[in-house]
Every structure is written in structure tokens, then in C-alpha cells.
């Protein structure tokens, strides 16, 4: 039971972004994928989601691959994108119904859970509204509610704190902690390390399409020659220097 990415090479047509990337997430683990803009974090996620074809390598989720059974593979993961992507024609309630339909959730069990999530994110009174008319922060909350409602073994969260109010950030961190405790796998990209540190078990630094180091913050510091007293932001300086010197 794990997400395994081995020797992944990929990117966009005629442009390689990911180059021999290896990554492993086990149940109950939250992996923080960090790196500079353009390092390939979102591209890696797109490969896991099956939005981009892999040129080389293999992505398996609980022994299943996207090529073998796309629907079964996708049923094991939920995704919270950096920018909310909603169906303009669906109300909030219908987004939840669609999530239940797609993931084959029993409504009798899913609705109480949905109500709980909606209350936590202060959306319970907006069920009949079109979320496409919500503010960006509220739209992001809809994405969070739908993803946690799906209750999948793997949760992929891209820059989760963008646009959220402090209350929502606290609630989201609590949900991630609970999911982690329930044995879910979580892959998260973020630049906001101060908030992410509370839930991330290990970090993977992505630089120039590959992951040179995976480990705790202390291990990452050591790898990049940072003193314990140094600000972690210095890591990004080092990554930038590495990029400049090829």
C-alpha cells in the first residue's frame, strides 16, 4: 500500500521538465514537495493524476497503474488544485453529489460527513449557490470539502494555503492531521513551510526536475549545508544558485 514513482521522465510536448524522479509515500505519511517556481512540482502532480503521459518510468498507487484501469486508479486519489477548478453549472450541493457519484460513496454515510465539513468551512448555508460566483478563498474551501469527502487513500494538495483565511488554514491542517492518523497518504506542495511543518512527515526537494534529497527538515538542512540557526528560506537561495550554475 503506497504511492511509488520510479524513474519518472516527463513534461510537456518537446520540453522535459521531470528527469528521473523517484518518490515513495507510505500510508500515514505526509510528504512535502518543495522547490522553486518552475522546479516541476505541478508537473509531477499532473503525471500522478494522469493529465500528462509519462515518457519513461512508472507510477503505481497500491499496485495499480493508470494504464491498467484508469477509473480504479483515480478512485484512490483526490486532488486539491492550487487554483480552484469548479463546474460553473453546478451548485455547491451538486458538487458534493457529483463527488459521491464519481467515487461511488453511499449517500447515507457521505452526507453527514459532508455536513460536518461544510460547517467547519462555514459553507453550510450556501448549498444552493453556484460556487463559481464565490470568492477565491471560498472556492478553495469547496475543493477541500470535496476532496476530503472522497475519503481516498491518497490526497494530493497543491499549494493548499493560498487564499485561505487563518481559520480555514487551521481547519485544513487539522483535517490533514486526522487523515494522516487514519493512514492516508498525502502529497503536498507548498512554499508556506511555517504552516506546513506541523503536518509534514518528510520533505522532498525538487530541483531541475529531479529529487536530490528526501528527509526531515534537519536532514535537508544538512544536505544543503545550512546551520540549525539558518532560516529555511536560505535553502531556496541555494537551489537558485544550483540552477544558475547548471
Amino acid at each position: 500500500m503506497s504511492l511509488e514513482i520510479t524513474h519518472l521522465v516527463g513534461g510537456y510536448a518537446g520540453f522535459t521538465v521531470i528527469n528521473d524522479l523517484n518518490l515513495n509515500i507510505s500510508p500515514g505519511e505526509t510528504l512535502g514537495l518543495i522547490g522553486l517556481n518552475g522546479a516541476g512540482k505541478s508537473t509531477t502532480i499532473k503525471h500522478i493524476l494522469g493529465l500528462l503521459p509519462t515518457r519513461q518510468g512508472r507510477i503505481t498507487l497500491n499496485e495499480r497503474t493508470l494504464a491498467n484501469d484508469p477509473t480504479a486508479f483515480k478512485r484512490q486519489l483526490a486532488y486539491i488544485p492550487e487554483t480552484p477548478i469548479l463546474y460553473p453549472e453546478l451548485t455547491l450541493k451538486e458538487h458534493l453529489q457529483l463527488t459521491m457519484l464519481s467515487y461511488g460513496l453511499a449517500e447515507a454515510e457521505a452526507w453527514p460527513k459532508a455536513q460536518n465539513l461544510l460547517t467547519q468551512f462555514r459553507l453550510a448555508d450556501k448549498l444552493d449557490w453556484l460556487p463559481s460566483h464565490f470568492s477565491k478563498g471560498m472556492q478553495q474551501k469547496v475543493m477541500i470539502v470535496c476532496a476530503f469527502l472522497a475519503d481516498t487513500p491518497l490526497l494530493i494538495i497543491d499549494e493548499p494555503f493560498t487564499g485561505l483565511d487563518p481559520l480555514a488554514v487551521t481547519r485544513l491542517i487539522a483535517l490533514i492531521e486526522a487523515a494522516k492518523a487514519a493512514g492516508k497518504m498525502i502529497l503536498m506542495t507548498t512554499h508556506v513551510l511555517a504552516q506546513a511543518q506541523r503536518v509534514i512527515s518528510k520533505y522532498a526537494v525538487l530541483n531541475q526536475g529531479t529529487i536530490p534529497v528526501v528527509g526531515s527538515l534537519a536532514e535537508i538542512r544538512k544536505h544543503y549545508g545550512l546551520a540549525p540557526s539558518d532560516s529555511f528560506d536560505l535553502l531556496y537561495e541555494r537551489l537558485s544558485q544550483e540552477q544558475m550554475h547548471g
Partner: protein
Amino acid sequence: MDKLAKARLRANLKQSLQYLSLVFNDFFVLALLFLVGAVMFWYAQSLKQLPTGKWYYPLLAALLLWLPSLTGRLVTLLKPADQQFLLTQDRYFASYLSKMRRYSLILPTLLLLLMAGVVFPFALVKAQLTVSTYVAMIGFLLLSKYSQLRLAARQLYFNQPKFATWIHLGTLALLIMIAYSQLWFLAVLSLGWAYWWRSSTDAVNWLSAIAQEQQRKNTIYAIYAMFTDVPERQLAIKRRRYLDWLLAWSKKTHNPNLFLYQRLFLRNPAYLSLVSQMVCFSVLLSLLVANGIWNLGLAMLVAFLTVYQLAPLIQAYDYQLMYLVLPIDPATRPRAGIRVIATAINGYGWLVGLSWLCLLPWSWQVLWQVPLLLIGVNLLAFGYLPLRMKKMEQK
């Protein structure tokens, strides 16, 4: 700002000409020529038969002349990014708008002159208006349009009264007064009124101005979209709560694709508006043709065109990222699409059939044409449509 206005007007003209060349394609021009010819022939015949000097003729002439003044909203060509990049340009906005105002006058002026030419024989011969009164009416309308555009430009600033509807109605009332009592001075007064509306010293209401322009452009794009694809068109999804009973009425589905397509059809104007327009078009054709077998043939042709244009509904989410991420089985797409389109085209069949029964002269022929139309639309939905969808999915 002046340079920007000129550049935007040039780009807009270029884009409009591109779309107009697609709208006025060979078939449409031919159809238009026949239509205009038929209307002109009918008009010439009617002029010969109409009695002269009825009291309501000047009113009718005024109404017809007033219609073009409803067109030609203020073109501002503002873009969403302007609220960021032009925020500091309030002082120069009036000069930008004066160029836009001049451009905005072109369409209503052309339409007014065209209408003036068409109405002229009726106004002079049948309504017995003098040439000077007629010219005064035209002049007044031109001045009024100019005033409306000045007012529209001023309303792009904060703290301005909104009375666009009253302006239109006031124009009509004054026009009728000129037609009946030859009060030419009203035209002169309106000229003074137009100049009285000077530029505002308030701040520009950028958000509202940009929203108005987006709405105006979307209206234009919607017209182009009847003839060709318009990628720039932004569809305003409407909640349409009053149609929720249709969703409640249809059986609860376990197919996510059907769930999506039902809502897409009801709330996205591209689909529901298309069916509504096709129903109206078919009913209008039936009334004009008023011939049994032709009515059936034309209604079937319109039904085919409707089904053909609705078929891409199943590809509506092809580039929607969450649709691709969600575990939705793509194999159920055609079945779901056929069900939604079949319901829509049956609605079309029933509405057109009912219009035949209610609006056409009664005959037994109509009674058997209605079931034939319903059989025909179902053949399209369950015979032709699956083949077309299969082809689309293979591409």
C-alpha cells in the same frame, strides 16, 4: 489614452469585419436578398392598398424610426486588466471616451438612415407628413442618440443617476410630438440638452464600466455565435432555479455524466437558448409557410440542425481538469448525452406540434403531422445521434 483608444478601435474594427465576413456568408446573403425582396414587394403592394391619412400613421412612422435608436450602445472596449493598468488614468478617460462615442454613433446612424429611406414613402404619401417634419424627426433622432451616448459615457463615473430606459421613452414621446405638431424647436432643445451633459469630474467606476463592456461584447458575440464559433464569447452561467423541477422530475441518476449534462443543458445558455431559438424559428417558419407537408419538412430540418449543434455537449468537459481527475467512466458519455438531447428534442417536437394545433388553421392534416414530427425527432435522437456521437468519440 488617445493612442490606446485608436489602437483598440482599429483592432475592434478588424475583428468585427472578420466576424461579419463569416456572418454574411454566401447562403445568408442570398437568403437575406430573398427576404428583403419579399418584404419590399409586400410593402410596395401594401402601400397601394392602404387608405391615406389615418390618425395613427404618424405614430407608426415615429415608432419605426425610433427602433434604430435602440441599437448602438456605447462602445468602450475596456478590458478587465484596465482596472489595474489604467486605474490612474481617470483624468484622460473623457478624451478616450469621446473617440469611443464617435465610433458608437456609426451603427445607429446607418440603421436610422436605412430605416428613414424605407419609411419615407409611407410617411409622406400615407401619413402625409411634410418633408421638413420628416427631416426634423430624423435630425432629432440623431441628436437624441448623440445625447444618449454622452449620457452613457457620463454614467461610467461614480454618483451618476441611471435613467437609460427613460431616455428611450422620452425620445419616443418627443418624436411623436414632432410628428403630430411639428414642434421643431424640440430638436433644437435636445441639441442644447446634449451639450449640457458635460464630462463628470467624479472618479471613473472602472468595475462597472468594464462589466458593462463585457456584457455588450457578449451580446455581439452571441449574434456572431449563431453563424460561427466565437472563442471570445464568455457564457454567463445562470442558476435558473425555476428549472430545478425538471431535474427533480427526471429519475435520480447514478451516471455522473448524465448528472453533469442535465445541469449543463439547463444552465449553460449555449444549449437551452439554442433549443428555445430553434423552437421560435420553427414556429415562425410554420406560420410563414402555412403549408402542411412543407411545415413538417422544415420542422424536421430545424430539428436535425438542433440535434447536430447539440451533439458536442458530450465534449463540453474534455478540457476541464477536475472532470479528467474525477473517476468518471468515459464509456457512459454517449448514453448520457443521447438521453439529455433526446429529452430536449422531444421538447422541441411537442412545442412545435402544439403551435401547429393552436396557431395554424384547423385541418385533419395537422393532426397526423404532429405524431409524424414526434416520430421523426425520435429517429434523429436514437438513430442518427448515436452514430454521430460514436464518430465524435473516435476522433
